[in-house]
């Protein structure tokens, strides 16, 4: 078989594998009934809406900045800015996946044992990564081109530049991702506690991205205001982008050549560089210092404690799990910091907004925000699926399934507890709260967590998925996670609306009534969930089979 054919086949396998994994929740829906079809439709709709929103946003920003550039006579900057923003967006999407995409694939040994050139294996993976980058960059760059076409009109050369750019941008971001993937792969292999490092690094990156996302408005305003300064700087210091701008907007096609040569040359160099290190990278072994076993007394613990420890150990062993399902703990801490720094703002603004409020709205507001925040920690929604190939262990041993469910459900409040405690202390220190208020702010998110914890297990028992090859697929893309998240947020918001509205508008309505309504509501839901697990849940567990 020729190398080209092999590369083509490998790319096909890689991409179809990814699509298969993404869409696997849709298979077998006939068996799962109408509820399942509604859930599937919901997810597909959300994904399409998210894509459309991003494209609409890109179109809007391009239009606004385009008119500004047109007014300031620097429209040549239009496509260079589009080029940079599309490259950055696709980089965000792929840069962290590059290492596993290129080097940590499960078919490494299999492919190396076959008569396939290692460079062909690498090329196939780079092309698969390129496809991913292509999707990401096109979401941003296509609306930019459409905006230009509608408002400023394409010439033949500008359209040609636009078309070439569509393929050039993902090439550049793929090359950068590959380089990043290579260095992270090289570094992490030498770090002993890389799980912790990955989590910290991930949270820092997410924090940075969130900060940029939250300040996108001011950033765009600043760009509009200083568009001439930006144009001057690009013209002076980045000839490559300037020439590209001239080519794409003023029809000087030669201007595209430096960018074309740079992108192709840079990508080729990266490919040559990585292909020389490829075998070494995919056969690298994590240098682990052997820990010597020292006999210690092995104290027995009760089964429930052992199960909870096992769940905790599993949770912290997967950085993506911590990042994805522990994000709300960080958000709760941010809420606490906000209360510490600007608590007075809440206290002063609420009486003005709700002059008739009888009870302490502050506690209700903080408690409900914290509860909503905590229910987003969907630790338990993937937990049954994650048992995967180890399910035999729990099922063949004498463990009451209810103990397994309770141990798993307990993870939700455990993971959320640090954020809750911090915010409760911040509220108690900063705000004028009664003991009842403080107790409410503490207990309501915890009960909400217990509710969402059990909900995750109920949903996952109903729609488990054991055909995964990496945990990330289950943690991020499984149907049970999405459904649990929506249901948890929906059910958590109901009592607060019911409790806050009368507390805000009725003079004689005591805050204690509101607290009572919320607590009784969640306790009732938790009892319902436990009843469901005790009856249907145990049966579903009995029939679970990998």
């Amino acid at each position: 078989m020729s190398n080209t054919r092999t590369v083509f086949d490998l790319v096909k396998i890689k991409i179809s594998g990814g699509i298969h994994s993404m869409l696997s929740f849709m298979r077998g829906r006939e068996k799962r009934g109408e509820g399942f079809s509604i859930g599937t439709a919901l997810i597909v709709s959300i994904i399409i809406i998210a894509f459309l929103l991003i494209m609409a946003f890109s179109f809007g920003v391009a239009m606004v900045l385009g008119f500004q550039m047109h007014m300031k006579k620097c429209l040549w900057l239009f496509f260079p800015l589009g080029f940079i923003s599309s490259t950055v967006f696709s980089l965000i999407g792929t840069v962290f996946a590059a290492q596993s995409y290129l080097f940590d694939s499960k078919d490494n040994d299999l492919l190396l044992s076959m008569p396939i050139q290692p460079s062909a294996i690498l090329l196939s993976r780079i092309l698969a990564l390129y496809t991913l980058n292509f999707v990401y960059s096109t979401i941003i760059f296509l609306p930019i081109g459409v905006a230009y076409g509608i408002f400023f009109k394409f010439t033949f050369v500008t359209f040609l530049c636009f078309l070439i750019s569509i393929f050039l941008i993902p090439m550049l971001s793929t090359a950068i991702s590959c380089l990043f993937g290579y260095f992270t792969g090289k570094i992490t292999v030498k770090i002993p506690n890389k799980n912790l490092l990955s989590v910290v690094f991930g949270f820092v990156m997410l924090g940075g991205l969130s900060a940029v996302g939250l300040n996108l408005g001011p950033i765009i305003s600043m760009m509009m205001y200083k568009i001439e300064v930006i144009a001057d700087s690009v013209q002076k210091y980045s000839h490559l982008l300037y020439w590209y701008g001239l080519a794409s907007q003023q029809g000087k096609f030669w201007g595209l050549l430096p960018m074309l040569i740079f992108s192709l040359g840079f990508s080729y160099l990266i490919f040559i560089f990585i292909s020389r290190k490829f075998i070494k990278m995919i056969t690298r072994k994590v240098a682990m210092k052997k820990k010597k076993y020292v006999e210690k007394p092995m104290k027995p613990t009760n089964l429930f404690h052992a199960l909870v420890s096992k769940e905790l150990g599993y949770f912290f062993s997967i950085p993506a799990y911590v990042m994805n399902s522990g994000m709300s703990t960080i958000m709760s801490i941010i809420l606490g910091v906000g209360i510490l720094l600007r608590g007075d703002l809440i206290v002063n603004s609420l009486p003005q907004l709700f002059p008739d409020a009888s009870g302490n709205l502050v506690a209700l507001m903080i408690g409900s925000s914290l509860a909503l925040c905590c229910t987003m920690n969907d630790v338990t929604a993937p937990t049954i699926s994650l048992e995967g190939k180890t399910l035999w262990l729990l099922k063949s041993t004498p463990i009451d399934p209810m103990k397994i469910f309770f141990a798993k459900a307990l993870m939700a409040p455990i993971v959320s507890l640090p954020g809750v405690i911090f915010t409760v202390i911040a509220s108690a220190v900063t705000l004028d709260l009664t003991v009842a208020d403080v107790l409410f702010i503490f207990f309501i998110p915890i009960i909400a967590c217990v509710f969402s914890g059990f909900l995750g297990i109920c949903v996952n028992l109903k729609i488990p998925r054991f055909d995964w090859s990496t945990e990330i697929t289950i943690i991020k893309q499984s149907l049970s996670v999405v459904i649990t998240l929506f249901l948890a947020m929906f059910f958590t918001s109901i009592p607060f609306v019911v409790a806050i509205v009368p507390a805000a508008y009725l003079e004689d309505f005591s805050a204690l009534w509101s607290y009572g309504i919320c607590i009784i509501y969640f306790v009732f839901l938790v009892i319902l969930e436990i009843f469901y697990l005790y009856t249907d849940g145990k049966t579903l567990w009995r029939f679970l089979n990998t």
Partner: protein
Amino acid sequence: MLKIEHLTKKYGDKVAVSDLSLEIKSGEIYGFIGHNGAGKTTTIKSCCGLLEFEEGEIYVDGISVKEDPMECKRRLSYLPDNPDLYDFMPGIKYLNFVADIYGMTQEDRETQIKKLADMFGITSDLAQPINSYSHGMKQKLALISAFMHKPKLVLLDEPFVGLDPVASHRMKEEMRSACNEGAAVFFSTHVLEVAEKLCDKIAIISGGKLVVSGPTDEVIGKTSLEDVFLKLEDDHE
């Protein structure tokens, strides 16, 4: 110790095991032989409550698997053909976890783990996380966890896969020793020589149906187990 009565298990329309009956008594090592897809794993999984079955009954120590699976599981241990363990745990933590499940005393777990880990030669690796273990080491760890709580019935699916010759030898010794203490071992294997030398009784299954069962000497007669197996397979086809 294990009584299978007219077991029938279907996957959709496909009959995996059909009307299978067997009895394994205390002190017996019972080998279960059959081609790939013959129904060995399905039978073993049904015995330990991992699979629900349509017809028939399975009793462990006189207790019905259908009616009281928890009590049955307290008396048995099961090991699948390719045991995936909790990779994130160090070996010793995993064994301690299993000991907690079976409620073993501190003294029991310490003695048993030391004895079995020394026997399989993995004591020095017990502090390492399981994801750093080789396939054979994982198999040894899984075997330790299967034997350490002294179950009355041991159900093993292809237990010799991945074991080195020394570990295989030790494993056979452990099986015999468990049986001498009153336990019963029921295991599937493709290694006919091992079955021939080790088993007190043998059952051959083909296409989900029991073809022959009984004491090893009677099943083999004057030929070898390989000859018997191949002949029965041919006859069945």
